[in-house]
């Protein structure tokens, strides 16, 4: 057994190191629980679902400004479209950029839907943005973003 030699530490040094360690572990614990998805990874996720550059407009997201319970947040996505065979919404992709995984749901519509509006209830880990991208029948993409403030996160623990 070799003797472990500790470097000499002044009192100040010990306090500073402890504080740094504490801060680092708090930050990493926080990150591990919450912000696994970032706006960048959400964008990447969307890029895989729908190829191309999305323009702002046509899409509207209805969601509460403040959600008290992140376990169950009602979200409605509506897209302006006549929903005819020539001009319809093919798909609506929804992502959230602060959940452990960015994906929320993708909806695939047909002209038989008559109206491009879907509602569901989602989980939100923390205050974050919901991004919806609508893919039209002609391949064009439209997007909208909405922030929801979450009081109690909904990812269990």
């Amino acid at each position, binding site marked *: 057994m070799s003797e472990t030699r500790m470097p000499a530490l002044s009192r100040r040094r010990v306090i500073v190191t402890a504080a740094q360690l504490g801060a680092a572990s708090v930050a990493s614990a926080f990150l591990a629980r919450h912000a696994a998805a970032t706006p960048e990874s959400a964008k990447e996720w969307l890029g895989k679902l729908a190829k191309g550059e999305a323009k702002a407009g046509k899409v509207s997201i209805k969601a509460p400004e403040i959600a008290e319970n992140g376990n169950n947040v009602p979200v409605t996505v509506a897209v302006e479209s006549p929903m005819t065979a020539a001009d319809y919404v093919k798909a609506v992709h929804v992502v959230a950029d602060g959940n*452990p995984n960015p994906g929320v749901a993708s*909806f*695939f519509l*047909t002209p038989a*839907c008559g109206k491009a509006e*879907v*509602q*569901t*209830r989602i989980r939100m880990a923390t205050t974050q943005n919901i991004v919806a991208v609508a893919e039209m029948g002609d391949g064009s993409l439209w997007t909208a973003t909405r922030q929801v403030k979450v009081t109690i996160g909904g*990812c269990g623990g």
Partner: protein
Amino acid sequence: MAADVKPRIKAPATAKKGETFEIKTLVTHEMESGQRKDADGKTIPRKIINAFHCKLNGREVFSAKIEPAVAANPYLSFFVRAEESGTYEFTWVDDDGSLYKAEHKIAVS
């Protein structure tokens, strides 16, 4: 788990031709996200409904791909245009491969 999965559909029984109406669906399911840990610190495996399909007389009208971020007892509502009488068939696909089904008949005048 299939025993406590109960699909519910809310939609009109009759509609005028060309009218657009809403179909509301809900299925009881815990939607285990795969993020939670049990008392021993072990991760509880993911078990969610990952897809939903709605067909009218065998033709797909609406479908969805669902991620764990959808809340427990997944609720989905969407719109359809009444073109013909028939039966809407709803299918939910579980991670373990089981399918949960429901039907709704509509008379279009």
